[in-house]
């Protein structure tokens, strides 16, 4: 028996969120005695990179290097993962919540007749039934969810467990999968991705700007701050609606939900819909000229004042300190 983890990679590197999912599965197996953790990786990625997944807790990585799987074609990935699940005799599939992961997990729930829980925030409790805690109401509450099926899928939220880094190298084995052409019927014609930057949904630090930044020409100072912190940049909804920033940077109820250690909000009022996207942050810093801005109620640290004056000073102070 083993626990299967579906891992994703981009630009030759396994995603950090996927490594967290491996660590989650490792801790879960320690609890349920489900045996070793086996990861499944699809498409072109180096054997060295895959062996390193062992550090996070995997004993083995099954790899299909079928090039057609390089593009995240949802149906084809679901078929491949279902075959890996059967091959290792798993009862539990763990994966990190993501754009592709969610889409693949939903199809797998039907293929594997598995109870699926998304936004899992901690290890399941198994003392009375199989009960999984997940985040609901966009981070405003939690639900204990009872899974009644033999097969289970857990889509894990960022920071649900600490990343394990002290494991040994994993054994990488070839996985051969049979995928029908109909699973490749939809075509990904092109991909646009911000390269070399820290990606917002996975970032450990986020610097976000709101309408208080006055215009896109003023984002340079936020980018400087972000660069100094090694952070991703985000924004409020109106900012992406007016086109000051790209849509994938929009944080909140209807945008990206982030869960960084540090969220720095500059010139954002803190409307409830914005807060819904940031309430899983460990620490929130708010810079706003209005002392009554609602964001201060959700913040750990705040500075009342003009962003145009404070942000460059903060960047300088950080450069001096770090």
């Amino acid at each position, binding site marked *: 028996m083993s626990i299967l983890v579906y891992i994703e990679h981009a630009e030759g590197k396994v995603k950090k969120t996927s490594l967290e999912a491996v660590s989650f599965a490792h801790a879960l197996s320690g609890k349920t005695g489900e045996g070793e953790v086996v990861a499944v990786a699809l498409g072109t990625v180096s054997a060295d990179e895959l062996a390193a997944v062992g550090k996070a807790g995997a004993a083995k990585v099954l790899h299909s290097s079928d090039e057609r799987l390089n593009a*995240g074609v949802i149906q084809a990935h679901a078929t491949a993962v279902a075959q890996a699940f059967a091959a290792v005799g798993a009862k539990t599939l763990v994966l990190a919540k993501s754009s592709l992961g969610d889409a693949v997990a939903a199809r797998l729930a039907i293929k594997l007749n598995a*109870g699926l829980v998304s936004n899992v925030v901690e290890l399941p409790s198994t003392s009375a039934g199989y*009960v999984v805690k997940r985040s609901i109401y*966009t981070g405003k509450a939690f*639900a204990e969810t009872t899974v009644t099926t033999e097969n289970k899928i857990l889509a894990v939220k960022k920071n649900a467990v600490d990343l394990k880094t002290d494991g040994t190298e994993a054994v990488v084995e070839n996985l051969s999968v049979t995928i029908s052409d109909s699973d490749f019927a939809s075509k990904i014609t092109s991909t646009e991705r911000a390269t070399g930057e820290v990606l917002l949904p996975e970032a450990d630090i986020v610097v976000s700007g709101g309408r208080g930044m006055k215009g896109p020409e003023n984002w340079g100072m936020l980018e400087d701050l972000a660069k100094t912190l090694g952070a991703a940049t985000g924004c409020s909804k109106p900012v992406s609606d007016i086109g000051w920033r790209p849509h*994938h940077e929009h944080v909140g109820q209807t945008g990206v939900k982030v869960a960084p250690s540090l969220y720095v909000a500059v010139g954002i009022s803190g409307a409830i819909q914005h807060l819904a996207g940031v309430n899983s942050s*460990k620490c929130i810093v708010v810079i706003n000229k209005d002392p009554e801005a609602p964001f201060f109620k959700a913040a750990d*640290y705040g500075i009342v004042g003009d962003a145009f004056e404070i942000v460059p000073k903060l960047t300088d*102070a950080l450069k001096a300190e770090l």
Partner: protein
Amino acid sequence: MKILVCITHVPDTTSKIQFTANNTKFDTTGVQFIIGPYDDYALARAVELRDQTGGSLTVLNVGEAETEPTLRKALAIGADDAIRVNAFPKDSYFVAKQIAHYAKEGGYELILMGRESIDFNGGMVHGMVGELLGMPSFSPVMKLDLEGNTVKMAREIEGGKEYLEAQLPLIAGCQEPIAEWKIPNMRGIMSARTKPLNVVEAVTQKTQAEASSYQLPPAKGSVKLIDKDQVSELVKLLKNEAKVL
């Protein structure tokens, strides 16, 4: 073309989230219910596509009688008819089974819904329905255009988007900026009263992952304010107190 839009009936985004009955039930006291914001995007795009192709647009909700005003609102926005599957939406699997059953019966070629509901945030129903019906499913879709039987889409991925082409029939979980939310006008509201809203019985289906109890997160402590002329103080606190640097 026959289009189906599945909508959720969820608390307004400004609602205070509270629970009753020993934390086993959502407290609806004082809560206003709306069409899920993502579903609202799906509906808005569906109205445009229906007008473009001259087909029909049905909205469906799995819910008890109290969701009917939400379905009427969808009719006012522009759907032609509505189906309410009479059951409490117990889990994603239960809901997906209901949708798949009625979608198959109705022979819909394009099924749209929000990328996720804003109550349980599962984001799984579209994929489940897709697998149940043997149709491709895509989410989160931020652009969707029809050219004959070909559907051209953009799907959001971490840090960007991917452009796709697929054939009808298919299912998409939608998000902005696929279309702009539509506000019902007076004529829409009047005509919604007489458009058909059919109540159908749920198919018998066991659940797989049902919520059994709820909790609120611990209350946040109060903010520590730092003087704007002592920015370096903030850096020290982040480093030594919050330990996030």
